[in-house]
């Protein structure tokens, strides 16, 4: 039987490392379980950013999260990049290395965006082959995240959760289940997020992401610029029931508040599972933070617009 989280430790509740919080973290040494950093921001850094990362890695568990591996691209893998990832992972003793199921560019160009791939047998075979090579270079299992998607393809023959399941099994890799991305993608692509959460291989989930997003009425955008909404908390509760304890990380990348606010947000994840509810400032249609909109007895989570709280741009 496979070990849960592919044998990785449950690190607790972590925060995405952001430049604006560097001074606070170094001075205050907050009681945070762990940090995740964006790999590409530190691969070449010889300045203060790298110094701060080294200091933080001395005191806290850290995890690497990349955005440029482009595992789904038809361009060759960049071995110089992979070797730098490997060296950095060793230097800071990263617990695991993750990236996204996506492509970021082709013909040598990098869009610096997480572009969706068609989901079919051909792309599955392609991605699995590349994951195996990456894992050989890194000498460790790769962990791949489900990105938010805004398009689907006529060439899709599989649902995303089916693709992830087959991919993880054939490549023997881990999954970073971004619960907010499941929700955002479910609205944008008209699928049931509960079925998604129920269908992924739970023992392969190494990490969760939680984040805020922006409601554009006809679609959602994964902006990482605010609190986590109740619909996502409800999916998170379901996911944790199915996976058991899994390291959970909050991403907050834009309009970033002071560190204590971000820290309090991720601690809601701990509270929401232990108590079945989240804090009073969770935005709900009734502005009632004390009464959860959903509970574990509900089999599916509706995601029509009436449950989405419009966010002022």
């Amino acid at each position, binding site marked *: 039987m496979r070990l849960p989280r592919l044998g990785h430790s449950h690190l607790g509740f972590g925060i995405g490392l952001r430049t604006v919080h560097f001074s606070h973290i170094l001075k205050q040494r907050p009681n945070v379980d762990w940090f995740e950093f964006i790999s590409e921001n530190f691969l070449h850094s*010889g300045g203060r950013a790298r110094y701060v990362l080294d200091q933080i890695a001395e005191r806290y568990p850290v995890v690497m999260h990349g955005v*440029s591996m482009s595992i789904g691209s038809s361009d060759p893998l960049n071995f110089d990049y992979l070797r730098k990832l490997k060296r950095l992972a060793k230097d800071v003793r990263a617990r695991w290395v993750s990236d996204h199921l996506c492509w970021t560019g082709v013909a040598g160009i990098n869009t610096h965006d997480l572009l969706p791939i068609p989901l079919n047998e051909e792309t599955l075979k392609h991605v699995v082959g590349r994951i195996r090579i990456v894992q050989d270079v890194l000498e460790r299992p790769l962990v791949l995240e489900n990105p938010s998607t805004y398009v689907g393809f006529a060439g899709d023959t599989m649902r995303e959760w089916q693709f992830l399941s087959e991919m993880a099994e054939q490549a023997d890799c881990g999954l970073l289940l971004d619960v907010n991305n499941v929700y955002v993608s479910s609205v944008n692509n008209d699928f049931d997020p509960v079925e998604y959460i129920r269908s992924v291989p739970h023992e392969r989930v190494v990490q969760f992401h939680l984040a805020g997003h922006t409601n554009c009425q006809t679609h959602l955008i994964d902006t990482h610029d605010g609190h986590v909404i109740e619909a996502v908390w409800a999916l998170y509760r379901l996911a944790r029931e199915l996976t058991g304890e899994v390291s959970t990380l909050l991403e907050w990348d834009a309009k970033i508040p002071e560190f204590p606010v971000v820290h309090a947000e991720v601690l809601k994840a701990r509270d929401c599972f232990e108590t079945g509810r989240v804090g009073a400032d969770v935005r709900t249609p009734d502005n009632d933070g004390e009464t959860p909109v959903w509970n574990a007895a509900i089999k599916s989570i509706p995601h029509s617009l009436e449950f989405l709280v419009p966010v002022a741009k």
Partner: protein
Amino acid sequence: MHPDGVVPGVLGPVARQHMELSPGELERVVTRSMSLTAAERVAIYSRAYHARLTECLEAEFRVLRHALGEDLFHMFARSYLSNCPSQSYTLADLGKGFPGYLRDTRPAESPDGKEEAWPDFIIDLARFERAFSEVYDGPGVEGSPMLSAEGLRTALANRDRQVRLMPAASLRLLTFRYPVHDYFHTARHGRDSELPALAETFLAMNRRDYVVTTIELSATQHALLSGLLEGQTVDQSLRRAGASLPDQRQQLVACMEKWSEQGFFAMAMVEKAN
């Protein structure tokens, strides 16, 4: 990502190399959702691409954006991104070619036929800000012992030896047509400033304890430091700077001692004189 949107992108030559598709046929490839057409869904990525990368350039070239204003900066940024798309896995390289692109696309003259001065200032400012970014996050010497003034004096004391100075990894020697550093520091402190007068400006840019500093140099100091950074001996560099008299040499040696205290040099390499 075509700068004018999805339909021009689909009809453009790059897309047509790979797929003959009219805008109306987009849903043969990309599906629509309950709320959006295929083109509208693709447009989400298109808008995000330009917005996000323009924002990255704004973050690196803040004072340039201040000098140009938002509209003109965005116009230059989008043109740069369209013509020089990123080919690096790190966003730290995104702005690397921006100063050169501004230089290469500099208008020769204004519509009324006169030579404009402000493009050169803008190019200089972009070069300065790019150099600042590279020094700030590039290789440095923090935590390593550096050559002190005392160490320099010791190295130079033996007249039978030639001395070369190894520069700090972060040290840059820069030349501008305008005193952009003054404008930069004024603007960064939130104060407005006029377009400065044309004045050849020599700067040393360095980093110490993760703080970037800029030091203005005279032409003579620039010549001296150029020689040292090119690997010439101290004596060769002093001659290059025109130090033919003892008091001229003494002044420039005092300069080098001050630079040593400012962390310009990693070490002195002493070798037998020829």
